[in-house]
Structure formats: C-alpha cells, structure tokens
C-alpha cells in the first residue's frame, strides 16, 4: 500500500534501506548525515538487524565488506571527509565484487571544509575514488522522495551487479523535510543464497573471496571481466530526467540539489519567454553521455550548474564533443546557487 509521510532527507535514506531489506548498517558520526546514523540505530535492533557505531569510517566500510560477504544487504553512510577514508574499502569491495551501499551526504571541502551541503565530491564519486581500475555506480537524488527511491534502487543495483553503489547526496537535501510516497511492502530479510558468499563450507567446496591476483596476466584477465560488467551497466542503467528540452535553445545540466535551483530557473525563464530546458543526470556513473550528446546537437548552448568549482562539466564536455558551447555557473564551499544568479547567467549566454 502506498503511504504518504513527511520525512527528512537523511531519514528517507534510512527508510529506503530498511524497505530494501538492509540487515546491517555501520556508521560513524559526521555532520550533515548524523540523522541517518541515528535513524539506523533506532530501527535496526527492532527488525533484528545489525547496527554498529564503528571506530572510524575505515572500520565501518570494512564491516560492510564483512557483512556483504555473508550475503545480507548492508550499508554505510558518511559525509565527504569520511568518504575519503572509505575509499580503500570501496576499492576492495569493487575488486571482490561485493555489493553494498555507500551514502555520501556531501559537505563543503577540501579538508574539514564546512558542514553546508555541497557538490565537491563528484570527481571522487565518479572516478572511482580509491585506487585501481574500477567503477562505482553513483546515484544522485534531488528530492527527499528520491532519497528514498534511489536508496531502494541502489540496493537492487548493488545485488544485480555485485558492486558497491554510492548514493551521492548533499547536506541540503539531507536536511530537507518533504512529504514522500512509500510502499509499505512485506520486506524479505533473509540472507540471499548467492553462490559466492562465505557462510561456512557445509555441503560444498570451500570458497575464497580475495583481490590479490599475482599470476601471470591473472589480474589483467580479471580487469577485463570487470570491464564487461561495467559495459553492461552502461548499456542498461543510465537514468536521467529531461525537463522542457523539446524546444529548448539552451539546456541546463545539473544534478542533485543544483537541479532543484535549475528547475526553478527553467520555470522562471520560460515565464519570461526564454526557451530553456534541463537535463538532470540521475546516474552520475554511468553518465548519460548519449542523451547529453544528442541534445547538444539541437541546442545553441549548454549551461552546467554545480555547487562546486565545476566537476561534472568535464563529463558534459566529453559527451558534447565540441558540438556546442558549454558554459558553467557554480559556487563552491557550500554556498547555495540562487535562481536569480542562474537567470543572469542564462541571459548573458543568450545575448
């Protein structure tokens, strides 16, 4: 049954995890995601799940590694500085093909930065972040509803592709209160019988899950195998929202919180007679390259807006391949983009 509830963004992630059958959560305090850890602390014991406040983000991601090995759905969450610490573990999960959900409620950086919502971790999230030749699926919610929906999707994709999946949110959406619709379904919390899990070798041959591959060309072969998986993900999992692009002369490209301001700007610009549309990538990796590339051929120019110095713009430029001009408007350091500023930039471009 569909239920309508008023909920905070961070809590909606927790609710999505619980509705997805998450059985083990490991966290470490950091603003602006603390509500999520607290939510899991409250709910997990009630559903017979595991909650641990780990000694560090490094420990938390390695606990996720361990829990994932047993076949349960598992999650950790943090904000930017903590996500840096998780990169080692994410790389190992990618190498061992272990599913798991990592939530980044981004704040301003670099360094300790500040605690305001920001989008400075796009490079880290989409470029792998950790060491080695791997990819992480990255989903970017722009509303509280999507905090819930994309968390559910992240668990599905993690299992489907045996891969870590990142929900790349930010402190603004994390703190936002909005009504959402959610399905109250009967959640299955059983350990899934996957053919690679470690649960003791009763009735089967012992298994090993590892990432050291020293044999001649052994690692290369494995890397190519992983690449095939990444190719399948690219073919099947790209998601983007198109908003008023049909007749648009300029399209804004924005994800997450920036896309909310972007949408407002499109509405306002249309009211003033400017033909503006918007592409909102929902999967940041895989990036909606083709969608952007096709639209680039039809418009006069593109405006990328981000709450950073400009990171996604590099993916946009790769997709556009010089077919049209790509402009940028952004503010780093946790400063929120104002609709009026975006409109000024649009006017400047269209002149």
């Amino acid at each position, binding site marked *: 049954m569909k239920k309508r509830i008023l909920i905070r963004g961070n809590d909606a992630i927790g609710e999505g995890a619980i509705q997805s059958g998450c059985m083990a959560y490991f966290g470490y305090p950091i603003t602006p995601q603390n509500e999520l850890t607290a939510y899991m602390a409250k709910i997990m014991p009630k559903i017979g799940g595991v909650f641990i406040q780990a000694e560090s983000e*490094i420990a938390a991601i*390695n606990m996720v*590694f361990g829990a994932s090995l047993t076949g349960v759905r598992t999650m950790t969450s943090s904000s930017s500085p903590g996500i840096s610490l998780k990169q080692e573990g994410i790389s190992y999960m990618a190498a061992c093909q272990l599913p798991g959900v990592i939530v980044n409620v981004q704040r301003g950086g670099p360094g300790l930065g500040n605690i305001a919502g920001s989008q400075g971790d796009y490079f880290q999230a989409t470029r792998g972040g950790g060491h080695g030749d791997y990819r992480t699926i990255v989903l970017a919610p722009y509303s509280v509803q999507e905090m819930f929906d994309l968390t559910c999707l992240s668990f599905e994709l993690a299992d489907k592709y045996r891969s870590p999946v990142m929900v790349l949110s930010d402190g603004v959406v994390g703190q936002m209160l909005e009504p959402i619709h959610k399905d109250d379904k009967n959640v299955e919390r059983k350990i899934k019988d996957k053919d690679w899990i470690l649960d003791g070798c009763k009735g089967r041959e012992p298994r090993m899950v*590892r990432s050291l591959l020293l044999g001649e060309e052994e690692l290369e072969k494995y890397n190519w195998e992983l690449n095939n998986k990444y190719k399948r993900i690219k073919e099947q999992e790209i998601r983007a929202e198109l908003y008023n692009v049909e007749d648009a002369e300029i399209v804004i490209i924005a994800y997450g919180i920036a896309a909310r301001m972007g949408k407002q700007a499109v509405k306002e610009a249309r009211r003033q007679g400017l033909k503006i549309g918007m592409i909102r990538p929902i999967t940041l990796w895989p990036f909606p390259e083709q969608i952007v590339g096709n639209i680039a051929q039809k418009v006069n120019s593109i405006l990328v807006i981000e709450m950073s110095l400009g990171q996604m713009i590099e993916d946009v430029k790769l997709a556009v391949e010089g077919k049209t001009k790509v402009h940028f408007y952004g503010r780093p350091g946790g400063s929120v983009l104002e609709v009026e500023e975006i409109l000024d930039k649009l006017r400047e471009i269209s002149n």
Partner: protein
Amino acid sequence: MKKLFSYPDSLKKARFSYCPGCGHGIVHRLLAEVIDEFKIREKTIGIAPVGCAVFAYHYWNFDVTEAAHGRPPAVATGIKRVLPDRIVFTYQGDGDLASIGAAEILHAANRGENITVIFINNAIYGMTGGQMAPTTLIGQKTWTSPGGRKAELSGYPMKISEALGQLDGVHYIERVAVNNPENVLKAKKAIKKAFKNQIANKGFSLVEVLSMCPVGWAVTSVEALRWIEEKLIPVYPLGVIRDKSKST
C-alpha cells in the same frame, strides 16, 4: 586400528610457499588441527591478512577471505555480527595488527567481539622485505632501521597484547611461541582455548605467537629458534595475559 595422527582436513594438500624455517606454516597446521578437533571446519570463516600469510586461502580448507591491510578485525566483526553461529577468526602479522590495524584490533577487542585472533609476532615486516615493525626490538637491524632500532627515533617494542589485556571487553589473551616442540604444544593448547571460548560465546580471544622469520632477521633457521628464546621472549614474556574465566 585407531588412527592417532593424520593430515588435517582443514589443510589443503598444497605446499606452503613460506621460506624455510618460517613460523607461519607451523601455526597454519596448529590452527587446522584445532578446527578439525572441534569439527567446525564447515562453519569456519577465516580472514587472511596482508602480509606473508596473504595466501592462507591456498592452504586452509574452509571459507576464507582476505582483508585490506590491518582491517581483518573490522571484516570479522561484519561477518560475525550477521552470522553469530559461525566461527570467525583473523590471522594477522605484527605490521597488520599492531601498526596499520591498531585501531581496528583495539576496538574489536573493546567491543568484546566473539571472534578469535591469531597474532603472529615476528618482530618484522616479512612480506615487504624486512622493514621495522612496531614490535621490532631495540637495536634490531632491519631494512628501515639499518643502524638498529633506536627508541628515541622509533619508540619501543610494542607490547600490544598487554595493552589489549587492559580492556574489559577482552576475554582471553595468551602469548606463546613456536620455537621448540614444547612451546608448539603450548601454542596449540592456547589456540584451542581461543576457539573454545568463541564456541562457548565467551567473547574476544587472542593468541600472540612469537614466530620465526629467519629471512627478515638474517639468521639461519636454527639460529632463529634460538633468537626467539634469547632475544624475543625476554621482551615478550610467554604466558596468559588475561583470562576472564580465571578471574572471579
């Protein structure tokens, strides 16, 4: 006829790739015997470290994973909390446990995780070619302490088992050695106890094993046995460090 001794089921029929005189092989064997004796092979999950024992999964005949350097206690926590009825152990070197993984072992111990830790102290980083470890002795020459370890520069040999022994979450810690038959038997007894504790849900148990690394110490295999007796044991005395079942 009753069979008194045989090859353990918990060891694969593979040849160890350790250097001659290395202690790792002996400890692998003891572990396998203990797991056989408790008939827990089919419910055991082992966690190999980053270090010379990284290939333990080639030798152990049960489910095994390999954690990032120093992180086995966190991985073990994740597994054991989800599957409390399985037997979960970590196998870690002194670089892995006492240096890069100091936080993970400290907190797993403090939480009283119901796991077993086999801690191989060979006073050196074996796998990377013989660098100084936190456990390296004062004056001990290594690749990164060519003039011998100096306390002013690198601190003191770290008695991490004693430090962990201060934590209320810890059930049992004992230090053993594998440099002579008598000590090997004692080591087996300690390992057995550490697994028995886990089976009985007693909580965190750790066995520190003083183990030979003739290559890292630049001595012969026979000299390595004596080196443990004469150099290591005086700094790292053998015996029970903490045993909650003994205290009242």
